[in-house]
């Protein structure tokens, strides 16, 4: 305990009280148990995870952006159908497919925009929503990769890594993520990368991870985690 912390507010009481005031500084102060820290970080991670309502809001919540646009498209499509006799030939299924494509394109643009927002919260919501669509969309994958490598918030970086999921097996994403592994400054980010490699990495990536762990080029707390997860499989 630092002296600075023991100084206290100025107290000017009777001599006996002053003596007690001075003696109080000698009281030993109990330390919390070692489990408190890990319990807190578990609770923090649980509390930081967006609820289903938040995820839905992230996906569909930017009403001011997409509802007017969809409404205009539906009206435009309706008018077009009514005024253009040549379109009578195309069936309703084709029109629905076209409409669906337009909506999903709009949704995708909103997501890409959300990933570049100034608010960390908005980027985090964008990352979570993008994770569900990234499999079929190289643009989203690139945007997530940019968040994973460059975002100023460790939470967004970790979430983006998590969202990329099986994409790590692709050459472009995989090489970039493996490059981040050694240089990650935050243990949380490094842990997200390690988990991703262990869950979705190729055999070559897992071997590379193990090499980094053995060479102690990962955060010290992660080395036993990696070796215990990989070595039994290797054996």
């Amino acid at each position, binding site marked *: 305990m630092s002296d600075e912390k023991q100084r206290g507010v100025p107290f000017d*009481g009777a001599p006996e009280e002053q003596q007690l005031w001075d003696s109080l500084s000698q009281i030993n102060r109990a330390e919390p148990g070692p489990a408190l820290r890990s319990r807190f970080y578990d609770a923090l991670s649980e509390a930081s995870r967006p609820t289903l309502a938040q995820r839905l809001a992230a996906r569909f919540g930017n009403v001011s952006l997409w509802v007017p646009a969809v409404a205009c498209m539906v009206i435009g499509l309706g008018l077009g159908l009514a005024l253009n006799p040549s379109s009578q030939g195309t069936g309703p299924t084709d029109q629905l497919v076209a409409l669906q494509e337009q909506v999903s394109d709009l949704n995708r643009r909103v997501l890409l925009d959300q990933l570049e927002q100034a608010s960390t919260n908005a980027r985090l919501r964008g990352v979570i929503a993008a994770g569900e669509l990234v499999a079929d969309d190289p643009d989203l994958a690139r945007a997530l990769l940019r968040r994973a490598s460059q975002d100023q918030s460790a939470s967004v970086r970790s979430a983006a890594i998590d969202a990329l999921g099986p994409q790590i097996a692709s050459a472009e994403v995989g090489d970039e993520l493996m490059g981040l592994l050694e240089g990650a400054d935050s243990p949380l980010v490094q842990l997200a990368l390690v988990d991703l490699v262990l869950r979705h990495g190729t055999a070559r990536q897992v071997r590379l991870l193990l090499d980094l762990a053995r060479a102690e080029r990962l955060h010290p707390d992660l080395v036993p985690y990696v070796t215990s997860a990989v070595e039994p499989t290797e054996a």
Partner: protein
Amino acid sequence: MQAVSDEQLISWVADGDSSCLGTLFERHHRGIYQFCLQLTRNPALAEDLTQEIFIRVLRKAGSFRGEGCFKAWLYNVARNLTFDELRKNKRRGITVPEPDAENLGHMVDERSAEQSASDKQRLDQLETALARLPEAAREVIWLGRFEFEGYDELAQALGCKPGAARVRMHRAMNQLNDIFKAMEVNPAHV
């Protein structure tokens, strides 16, 4: 020196970067635990409260408007939550344990072996006297002695005016002195 102030960190937490709460936890969790332990005299409950307080901070981060210091705001959250818990326990008929040899043992077990027996006895007595104070008096002494250096911040933590904090401190020290003197007259009370 801290590279990033507590106030900056809590503004980032409010902006959605919950990882910054980890830094605030590392800076303040010991003090918060010790404060909760002083009020509850129960190490397990003090740990639960410490965790709950920081999660409450995560949820309430947006309500910290940057007026005053973060630490005082944090201790205000801590005291509200701890007093709520103590009130709930009283309703359930759970009382704060009396300071006995076992409890004191937990609090003083790391005391230096070089301290003379009489010094040790005096400190034991002081701890017992402190534990016998009403909670409101105990909190003002603890926060004023160990956590804050000015009455403005102490008052912010206690949720009162600086003048009132000063008066409360003098009353609390007076009460502590009375209990301590009574114990010196009759050591059987220790």
